[in-house]
């Protein structure tokens, strides 16, 4: 348990804007990642941009939180949280990509999708492959 600690109410102007900048960058990279996951044509391409949320999106936002807490126990906690996200998420992303490969989801490669990745997504990606191995 962490003792409830009031946010340091006297954060300086520099620190305030640093926090705003960090949170802004965090939101920006998560936005890019969300756009990517919605736009990109197949599961493998989406996994790339999903790792943007895990790295810089979460990284900047949690860094902002840590700066706000200052030199306290809660900041150590936040860093630990970030460390966990960094360790576990690539493993999870790899597991998902590999499970897609094993269930026979074909990747959309450059030769196949020339102009309209969105349209080719509907054609190339097979629908539900329920645990079917190759």
């Amino acid at each position, binding site marked *: *348990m962490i003792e409830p600690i009031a946010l340091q109410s006297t954060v300086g102007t520099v620190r305030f804007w640093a926090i705003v900048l960090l949170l802004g960058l965090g939101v920006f*990279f998560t936005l*890019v990642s969300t*756009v*990517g996951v919605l*736009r*990109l*044509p*197949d599961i*493998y*391409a989406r*996994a*790339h*941009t999903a*790792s*943007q949320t*895990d*790295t*810089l999106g979460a990284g900047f936002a949690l860094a902002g939180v840590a700066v706000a807490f200052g030199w306290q*126990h809660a900041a*150590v*906690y936040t860093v*630990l949280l970030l460390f966990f996200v*960094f*360790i576990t*998420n*690539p*493993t999870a*992303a*790899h597991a998902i*990509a*590999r499970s897609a*490969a094993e269930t*026979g989801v*074909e*990747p*959309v*490669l*450059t030769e196949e*999708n020339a102009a309209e*990745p969105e349209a080719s997504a509907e054609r190339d990606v097979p629908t539900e492959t329920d645990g079917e191995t*190759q």
Partner: protein
Amino acid sequence: MAANRLLVPLSDTVTVRQTVGYAVQSGLEEADSLECHLVVALPYDGDVPEGDQQLEDAEGLLSRARNWVEEDAGDADVTIETATIGADEYLFGPRDYAEIFDAYADEHGIDRVIIDPEYQPGVTAQLLQPLERELERIGLAYDEAPVERSARHSRLAGGTEDFDRLFATFLISYGFYLVLGDPTYWFDLLTGAAVAGITAISLARVTFTVPLDRVQSPIRVVRFVFYIPYLLWEIVKANIAVSAVILRPSMPIEPSLTRVNTRVRSGLPLTALANSITLTPGTLTVRANNQQLLVHTLIPAARDDLFDGGLEKGIRFVFYGRESAAIPSPRERDDAEIVGGEEL
């Protein structure tokens, strides 16, 4: 009666002596003369820094085993053949081992394989059960040597190795507990010690499958700390490149599958490399087999970075030291190629 030909794969275990003894005894029961093939399967190619050391260890083990066989055979008619196999190919799973044993057996007309119950080549986890399954699949006759299990885990170095593992696991879990709790509160200190003790006893062997090295392991941790800023810098660069591509309305992506033969050992180093590659946006490890990584890349810039092997050099620096980091990039040594979707 024709000579009985036996294949005995050796590895440095507690029970290897008893296995050799059993092989000689059972072989001589069935036939008058025995041809005993002692082999050591080397898990890696000589390219890895530890390669030479492993070759030496293998030679030592083989000469010891030859003496054992001569000792057990006495006056009986026993021919001994020794060999190291697999040095020129990647050996990873039990299937690879079963296959090279089968190839060897075919070549030398082997009747039966005698397996050490603790057979454990290299640093991989024990693989007796999967190995037996693979041998059955291939149809190679095998026999598990009956050994006294009481000697298990008590080899000479076992004492300090076990202590190292227990100590390291204890330290990690205690540290984690105290970060979550309050390091100045006596109750947390006490319960933390108890919990970390239980964790260490029950999970030390699961956490560290490879024996720890008292000098090397802490150095690796320190080097890893130096590796983190470099990894973060690569991640930031890749993030910006990928963001620029995704946010452009035309979205000029060029997804491709590539295969890279890495020069890092299976296990923790390969895991670290594969995770670093996945963590960098633009490259995603789809499969990691042996030392081969199948990597999906989103944009040409990310593919070039991958082929330049910056992360691979970093991981080699972490695990093998500064000298080992200076190797040619995968592109230069022709270990990277773009493959089609059928490789999945």
